[in-house]
């Protein structure tokens, strides 16, 4: 592999969510992580340590930006103060990808700081298409939208979530961030078939993959990011890799943080699983 190919490979590669608990490990020595994903809002602050750390880590690793408060599906007006701050951070970070969720976070000017589920109706689809297109026009780049974990669905739903996302991506000309754990969690909670869902996702639109751990409450599962990735989710990840080919993929961990070395082991497992899939495909 030439130096150039290696760089291109690294830009694809396997990443981790950047979390402050791991700063000492990341700054101490080079880590076998191809890129990090930041939560955009954590760095939408005036200055100080957060931005200083961001610049230091950015000097050594490619970054991707993942937002949690675009509130794409909300019927409130788009928040251009937020989008301006996001655009400023994009200019600083020069990320490979900017993403957020198919969700809303509040209405009537409030923010519940959660990824709330949208009904899967034609009305909601038209609304999201129009807003995603305007966000992309404002940012001057394409964004990726992630399938959320959901715990309720609506009697008025007119289509499945995979079809909703496929149409949204096609009509708004945006990308998708496929969270395999969220597919698993939502499939369990709503009783749909996860592989059938994945079969309906347009592969050329998928710009990134998330996997994460969840909590199993037996009657339903919650997307808590506080456990290692489950076997069922790894199986779905392998299915995605075999079907979609190489797509940048990462592990999200947000609570009950293990030592960094354990997370690296999990990332190594992901790498080997993906490579094994490629050998099978070849």
């Amino acid at each position, binding site marked *: 592999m030439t130096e150039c190919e290696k760089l291109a490979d690294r830009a694809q590669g396997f990443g981790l969510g950047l979390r402050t608990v791991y700063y000492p490990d990341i700054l101490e020595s080079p880590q076998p992580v191809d890129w990090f994903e930041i939560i955009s809002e954590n760095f939408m602050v*005036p200055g100080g340590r957060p931005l200083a750390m961001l610049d230091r880590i950015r000097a050594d690793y490619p970054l991707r930006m993942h937002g949690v408060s675009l509130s794409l599906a909300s019927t409130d007006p788009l928040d251009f103060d937020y989008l301006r701050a996001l655009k400023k951070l994009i200019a600083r970070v020069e990320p490979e990808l900017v993403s957020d969720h198919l969700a809303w976070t509040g209405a009537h000017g409030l923010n519940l700081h*959660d990824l*709330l589920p949208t009904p899967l109706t034609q009305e909601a689809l038209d609304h999201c298409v129009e807003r995603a297109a305007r966000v992309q026009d404002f940012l001057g780049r394409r964004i990726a939208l992630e399938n959320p974990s959901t715990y*309720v669905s609506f009697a008025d739903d007119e289509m499945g979530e995979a079809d909703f996302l496929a149409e949204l991506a096609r009509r708004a000309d945006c990308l998708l961030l496929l969270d395999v754990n969220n597919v698993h969690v939502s499939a369990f909670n709503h009783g749909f078939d996860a592989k059938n869902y994945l079969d309906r996702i347009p592969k050329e639109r998928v710009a990134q993959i998330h996997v994460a751990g969840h909590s199993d409450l037996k009657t339903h599962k919650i997307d808590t990011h506080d456990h290692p990735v489950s076997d069922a989710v790894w199986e779905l990840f392998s299915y995605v890799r075999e079907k979609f080919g190489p797509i940048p993929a990462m592990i999200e961990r947000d609570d009950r943080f293990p030592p960094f070395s354990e997370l690296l082991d999990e990332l190594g497992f992901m790498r080997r699983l993906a490579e094994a899939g490629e050998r099978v495909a070849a």
Partner: protein
Amino acid sequence: MKLAELQSLFQASVLDAEPSPHLLARLRPPGRAESVAETFAVYHDGFRLRMTEFLANDYPVLRAALGELAFGAMAEAFWRARPSTFRNARWFGASLPAFLRTAPHYCADSFICGVAALEAALAKSFDAEDAEEIPISALAATREEDWPQLRLGFHPSVVVVETSQAALAAYEAAQTGEASLQSGGAVRLLVWRRDLDVNYRVLEGGEDMALVAAFDGAPFGEICSLLAFANPQKPAEELAMAAGNYLARWFADGMIVAAATAPG
């Protein structure tokens, strides 16, 4: 039902003590759970846990001082009075001290109000805007007759906060892991960031007065006059010397980012 109506109903069902039966009737039966109320609780209860967690992140000493139950109750009183309108959860808890100062249940508790004020000031300083500090040598060229017009610009991370001796002792005990039983009256703290680290120190009367005036843009001459009014028994030279020492210390601590003698 239109999308906007449905979102209103959903949001109210998260915020209210119980979800609206009208909303639950519009949700599909879950795959395995007993009832849709059980899965809706992920949003309803999750919201409360998250609000409490945001506040606990910004106010760990207050959280420890109140204990889990009382802190949870305070968090709910706070988000009910001041629901988040912020995209960034970072700003949600910033007005907690202002809320506590006027909330009937908390306003008389100088310890609780003091801990909250102290932790809010530290958080504000932590990620305030960056600015380049200037050395005291920047004043070397200032002519003696221009000194009364000298005005200073402070680093954006500089915060003056009123707290209590007991609150400060509790905060310091939490840093060292020791218990604190100290009591005591009001105390004013100077908080500022240098080299990414947040520092603080207690402000005494003269420096407090000089700093607040300088912070408000008063020129050096006015600061000296203020000190003279407050200390009529002290000779003017002594007070000018004290003012000069304060100023030197602010420079030495890296708190000054601009100095100019232009009238204005």
